[in-house]
């Protein structure tokens, strides 16, 4: 008798190797499903339980998740581009043209990287506006707004440093103008300009510095702050609308009708009742 595919999966999940990797065990009980999230390194940043209404499109328009999606696309397309691109003044422009006209799928990867970068900047701003108008920046979540501002700056710097790498006229003059803006900083502006470019003008040193910033330092910084950003969402009580948000927003988020959500207050200093583990009751 041939086994069904489901039976093969069940055997696999019952095997010793599988159970040594995923130690939460199998089963569809609430506990098992919560453990599957909590004991997974990639998922443990998130709540073990989430209310379906907070995953509805109207709550967030998925702008934060979409921003992460574009970031992942940028990492996935950026790394293959690095295999063909030499960050040196004589080769950078020719390599960019090679990627477009010679390398198989090079045009696709480069354009996907470029479009995703544009879309990511747009989504970061859209996400910021959504959070602002929803009032989600208010206490107790104000620190995550600060992390978000850092991520906005990292995104813009990634965009700016990536702009130089094609090493064409547009790149050269954009970075000339941009780095001269940096030299407008009082007192230390000239020093910042010199350190940023590794010289007095946009030159081979500047190209290499921008390459290292673009491919190494800024992506690592972005990942670091994205991890904090996500972790804070959970620690601040998930994407639930809080009492500190405008009443109209809360009414919309809950599909009409006022719902009281516990907030931090002298009477409730621990913010009990936010229900990060799904133990909060509606209308509490």
């Amino acid at each position: 008798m041939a086994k069904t595919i489901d039976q093969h999966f069940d055997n696999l999940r019952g095997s010793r190797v599988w159970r040594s990797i995923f130690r939460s065990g199998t089963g569809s009980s609430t506990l098992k499903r919560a453990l599957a999230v909590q004991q997974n390194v990639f998922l443990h940043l998130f709540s073990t339980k989430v209310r379906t209404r907070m995953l509805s499109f109207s709550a967030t328009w998925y702008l934060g998740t979409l921003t992460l999606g574009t970031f992942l696309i940028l990492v996935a397309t950026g790394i293959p581009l690095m295999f063909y691109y030499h960050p040196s003044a004589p080769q950078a422009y020719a390599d960019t043209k090679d990627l477009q006209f010679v390398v198989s799928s090079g045009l696709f990867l480069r354009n996907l990287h470029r479009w995703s970068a544009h879309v990511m900047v747009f989504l970061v701003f859209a996400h910021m506006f959504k959070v602002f108008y929803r009032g989600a920046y208010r206490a107790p979540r104000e620190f995550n707004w600060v992390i978000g501002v850092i991520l906005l700056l990292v995104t813009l710097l990634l965009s700016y440093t990536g702009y130089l790498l094609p090493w064409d006229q547009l790149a050269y003059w954009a970075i000339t103008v941009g780095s001269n803006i940096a030299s407008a900083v009082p007192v230390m502006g000239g020093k910042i300009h010199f350190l940023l470019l590794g010289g007095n003008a946009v030159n081979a040193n500047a190209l290499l510095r921008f390459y290292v910033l673009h491919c190494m330092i800024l992506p690592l910084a972005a990942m670091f702050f994205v991890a904090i950003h996500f972790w804070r969402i959970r620690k601040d009580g998930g994407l639930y609308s809080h009492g500190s948000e405008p009443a109209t927003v809360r009414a919309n988020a809950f599909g009409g009708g006022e719902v009281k959500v516990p907030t931090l207050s002298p009477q409730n200093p621990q913010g009990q009742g936010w229900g990060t583990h799904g133990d909060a009751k509606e209308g509490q």
Partner: protein
Amino acid sequence: MADEIKKSDDVSRRQFFAKLGLGSLGIAAAGTAAFAYQYLEPNVLFEPSPVVNAGKPDRYPLGSVTIDVNSGIYIIHSDEGYFSLSAVCTHLGCMTTWKPELNIIACPCHGSKFEQSGKKIEGPAPKPLPWKRIWLNDDGDLLVDRSTDVPPLARDSFVRV
């Protein structure tokens, strides 16, 4: 024995070592920052020389304004003599261009306009285009030092042949 009297400013052994450790880390961090700053500042630059050879003066007819885009300077032959002007806009570093039909120097990036003497007519540029030191070498070539500004319209800022 356990009730030994301590002075109020006494530190315990644990506090002492904690402070020693944090202090050492602080010193090490400051040293690392200093080394990092020095490392990131290049000591030798492979940039073009600031002194540019602009060739023989008779290349530039009387009344002409000639740009050298590679070195970013104008050689201008006026009635008072030859002088050199930086072609780099004082706003954000774009390369300006000479508009003979309007008799002005204009920047394509943000619309600054300058007179032939470098004086600003309009636009966001905060300063006039600086004059650069110009002189004749022994071969009779015009040399311009891009790293040295000279006062505009001053007698010594011109070369007369």
